[in-house]
């Protein structure tokens, strides 16, 4: 088994996929290393890649005029990093900064979209998984809109 295949198989995000689908994904994936402090992408950039964090922490930041950026979420081992590559206009809506040294699996967005469109079963499986991530982040956002920790505001 190739190293990339083993990494993909170990990721909870891809668990339950058929072997032939894992092989398709492994053939497209590339491992990258990002040094702490580096921006993986910036708000407004074309979303050319899909990333899954293998190790390390990444901050999703909202740049603010004349002020330090605010971190709105951090993602960690096993998390997918954004889905802007999935939907037009394919532009990132946050900055992603490596808070620690990071290793990630990277997929070329165009190739992944082509695979998803040509193999509907794999496309469905991928969309289901991204849907789940989106729902859980939407839920987390709603929780933050509530007075989750009783600050009284």
């Amino acid at each position, binding site marked *: 088994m190739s190293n990339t295949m083993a990494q993909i198989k170990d990721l909870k995000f891809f668990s339950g996929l058929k072997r032939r689908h894992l092989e398709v994904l492994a053939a497209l994936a590339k491992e990258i290393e990002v040094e702490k402090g580096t921006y993986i992408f910036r708000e407004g950039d074309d979303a050319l890649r899909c990333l899954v964090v293998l190790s390390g*922490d990444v*901050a999703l930041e909202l740049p603010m005029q004349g002020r*330090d*950026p*605010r*971190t*709105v*979420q*951090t993602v*960690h*081992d*096993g998390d997918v990093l954004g889905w802007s590559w999935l939907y037009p206009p394919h532009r990132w809506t946050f900055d992603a900064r490596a*808070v620690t040294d990071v290793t990630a699996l990277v997929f070329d967005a165009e190739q992944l979209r082509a695979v998803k469109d040509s193999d509907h079963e794999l496309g469905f499986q991928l969309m289901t998984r991204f849907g789940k991530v989106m729902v859980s982040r939407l839920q*987390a956002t709603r*929780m*933050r809109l*509530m*007075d*989750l*920790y*009783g*600050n*009284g505001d």
Partner: protein
Amino acid sequence: MATATELSIPQLLDPMPCVVRAVNRETHDTITLEVEPAEPYHFEPGQITMVYKHGVGEIPISISSDPDRHDRISQTVRGVGAVSKAIIASHPGDVLGIRGPFGVGWPIDQAEGGDVAIIGGGIGLAPLRSIVYRVLNRRDRFGAVVILVGARTPKDIVFAEELREWGSRFDIDVNVTVDTADRGWHGPVGVVTNMIPRAPWDSSKVTAFVCGPEVMMRFTARALREDDVPMDKVYVTMERNMQCGVGLCGHCQWGSHFVCREGPVFRYDTVAELFRIRGV
């Protein structure tokens, strides 16, 4: 000193004078008071007292200190209204009246031999802090010990120094997350439930102690269920207005339960339905 169940009603209705010995500021509106009781004080983690500020009034407050220490009690108070604001304005040397301890605490002995999850949101960490002391005092009786804390911003974290200290130990795993932060914060950002799927406990062997606002406890219980933690191993605390503390006045009634006597700690599966009923 006897426990609440051994004390007579008149004793439980009569405040014991306690001298404030230290006042530690936690956040802009929250302090931890260390008081010296008139006589050795015994309580179980999770129990509460009625704290009386002379001339102002009395409110229920959880005990947040080491249950194996009997010469001092700590209580962490957030100033929200007349009485709590008067209490947080206390200075060393002031005298407060304390009744109790009341209620049943966290069943820590039931976690022995397994892992322990301590999950707090905001000032909800206060009654959980006594569990941490108790578990650390008897560390060899437990497996993995994991503390998960959520706060609005880094400035809203209570017991920040102690969390750092516990986090530097090798036998306890401490994770603090905030809703939003600037670059000065190096920890995770996100809601407390995000940390549950990657927490290093064995879901089949963990007992979870959860405290925070009701909405936080509800979402946490849901995330624990999704993480395969059995709901009969999840405990929460319930706050209801209290007056007598001894089951006489009915102020603390929650559904069919009297929080002052049967609570404030409840096993989640026994009260889950009440969490779903609006306005109980």
